């Protein structure tokens, strides 16, 4: 507490952006902040591409019969939409982009544990993504992002190149997971012990556990499908003793924890933003932390609820059903804590908080329909219909994408040192939220009516709902484009944002924005708690 806290104006050494200017210094940077920004650009491109595929799918569904593409192209488009969104955007977007940038700062360190490994995992991601998208020229694949055996072994499309790409991207997730766990364990600054860590760091820690433990099993199932397709080894071919349901076990052992890889960081972002804009300590810090770890571990027990009607035994179905209910309770605890944090707070309405309220409503819908789908007799009717499509889009787009937009607006001043315009932000939110609702609520009704998934031609009676959903998707796309517009505008001509525009107590707001190369000049002053709003910010600055 000796020196006055270095005021968060730009310090002498400039920021991580200005310290080196050449392209090469960016592409080969081992500074976790630069790698984070590069990840952000790469994953945003993937989001744009995945979104384009989604728009094409929706336009195709304007009429029951063929509209703009043939069946062959449609089947490859929905697979590409799935693969691009899952592996190239949802999984790396918040952990790798925002996680890389903020984790070291939030624990008071100046770098991740293995900086060169961090750069290596970025380039592995880029190579993997290039291979996946390169496979499009060879005709991509039409098995859906689940590659179920035995069709994935017989499909005439370019299965092997795409799977090689995903296998490579998988290793990038594992290496990032290892990097984050070791950083959180060994690099925390003095005084930052486990129960004083920011909640976003806890979310990244839980996500990294899942990344390290689940992704290898995906790697193996991809290897098996590649061998089945290329050399017809028939590991799941029943005439040679195999059993296709076993592939589904292997695939979903990874893929259900993978959806928690996608949602946990989003929950971390929401915990941060709710606490900052309510200007209050989280309702129960311990409940949120233990729920994060609960989701990370119990998430591994529930994969069977994807296979209730797949020919699995009734006993196993029952076991997976009850375990799925167990993991749902942790999400419920988090929702209660977020809403309770608002109690007796001093709430400031801004775009990040708007997106968080959007997240809350959509995630509650998505989560509760998830519990409904895990109720086994209902799943028999809903499985593989548009009800399930609507459910996971509510949790993925309504959850992770909305939280990604919230994080983008919340840390935009910290990353770029510039401020975006609130009015355009609110308009962007309205378009995104309204467009989302109009796109996916009709899909719940489609699912109820029995409209199966992955259908190129659909029965005519579903047309009105499909048209409504397509119109909604256009509004959602407009909202995303508007957000891209005003954020790029703010990047160029936004007014300067100080070190702590939101008046937050969390550790990343105690440095300048954009932060200097070494994050903290001198010893980081983190004695005041990350969520201690009992003393006003002015007195905090004077006494630190």
């Amino acid at each position: 507490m000796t020196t006055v806290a270095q005021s968060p104006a730009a310090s002498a050494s400039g920021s991580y952006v200005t310290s080196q200017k050449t392209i090469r210094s960016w592409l080969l940077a081992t500074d976790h902040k630069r790698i984070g920004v590069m990840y952000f650009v790469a994953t945003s491109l993937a989001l744009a591409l995945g979104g384009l595929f989604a728009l094409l799918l929706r336009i195709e569904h304007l009429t029951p019969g063929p509209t703009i593409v043939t069946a062959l192209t449609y089947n490859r488009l929905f697979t590409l939409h799935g693969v691009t969104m899952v592996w190239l955007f949802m999984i790396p977007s918040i952990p790798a982009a925002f996680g890389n940038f903020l984790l070291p700062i939030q624990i008071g360190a100046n770098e991740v544990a293995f900086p060169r490994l961090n750069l290596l995992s970025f380039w592995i991601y880029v190579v993997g993504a290039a291979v996946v998208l390169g496979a499009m020229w060879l005709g991509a694949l039409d098995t859906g992002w689940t590659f179920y055996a035995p069709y994935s072994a017989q499909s005439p499309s370019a299965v092997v190149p795409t799977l090689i790409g995903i296998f490579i991207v998988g290793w990038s997730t594992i290496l990032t997971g290892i990097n984050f766990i070791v950083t959180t364990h060994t690099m925390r600054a003095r005084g930052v012990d486990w129960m004083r860590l920011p909640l976003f760091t806890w979310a990244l820690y839980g996500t990294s556990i899942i990344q390290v433990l689940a992704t290898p099993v995906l790697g193996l199932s991809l290897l098996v499908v590649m061998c089945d397709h290329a050399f017809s080894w028939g590991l799941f071919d029943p005439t040679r003793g195999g059993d296709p349901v076993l592939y589904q076990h292997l695939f979903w052992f990874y893929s259900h924890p993978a959806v928690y890889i996608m949602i946990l960081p989003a929950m971390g972002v929401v915990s941060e933003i709710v606490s900052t804009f309510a200007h209050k300590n989280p309702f129960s810090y311990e409940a949120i932390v233990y729920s994060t770890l609960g989701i990370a571990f119990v998430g591994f027990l529930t994969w069977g609820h994807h296979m209730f009607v797949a020919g699995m035994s009734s006993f196993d179905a029952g076991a997976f059903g009850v375990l799925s209910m167990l993991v749902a309770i942790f999400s419920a605890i988090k929702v209660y804590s977020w809403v309770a944090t608002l109690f007796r707070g001093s709430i400031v309405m801004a775009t990040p908080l708007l997106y968080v309220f959007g997240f809350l409503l959509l995630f509650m819908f998505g989560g509760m329909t998830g519990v409904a789908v895990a109720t086994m007799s209902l799943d028999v009717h809903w499985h593989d219909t548009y009800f399930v499509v609507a459910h996971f889009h509510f949790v993925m787009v309504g959850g992770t994408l909305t939280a990604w937009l919230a994080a983008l607006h919340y840390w935009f001043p910290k990353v770029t040192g510039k401020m975006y315009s609130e009015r355009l932000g609110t308009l962007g939110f309205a378009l995104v939220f309204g467009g989302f609702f109009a796109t996916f609520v009709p899909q719940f009704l489609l699912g109820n009516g029995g409209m199966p998934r992955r259908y190129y031609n659909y029965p005519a009676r579903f047309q009105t709902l499909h048209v409504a959903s397509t119109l909604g998707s256009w509004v959602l796309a407009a909202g995303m484009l508007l957000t891209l517009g005003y954020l790029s505008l703010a990047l160029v001509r936004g007014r300067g944002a100080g070190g702590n525009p939101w008046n937050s107590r969390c550790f990343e707001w105690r440095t300048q924005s954009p932060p200097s190369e070494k994050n903290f000049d001198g010893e980081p002053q983190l004695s005041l708690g990350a969520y201690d709003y009992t003393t006003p910010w002015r007195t905090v600055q004077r006494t630190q």
Partner: protein
Amino acid sequence: MNPERPPNAPPLSTLVLTGVLLLALAGASYGLSFLTLGAYALPVALAIAVCKALILLFVFMEFGKLSTSAKLAAGAALLMLLLLVGLMLADVATRVRPPLPPPTVS
């Protein structure tokens, strides 16, 4: 030839002895495989394999001296492995298989 040993370093002799012990266990397992143990053949072989694995883990990989976080990592991996094998086996074991199509009574 052996300057004073740095702290907590296992003496070379224990390492060699452990190697010999592992070979002995492998030999035992190999020998047992010739006896016709029938249903017990696999459990016995796996039990010996587990012993070898534990020895390897604690002596050669110095599992005992690891930080608690590394131990947690290894424990979590083992837990997930047993979970995957266990629940997959549970599914295969409890399947109700309808009888082969009954021949139509002539």
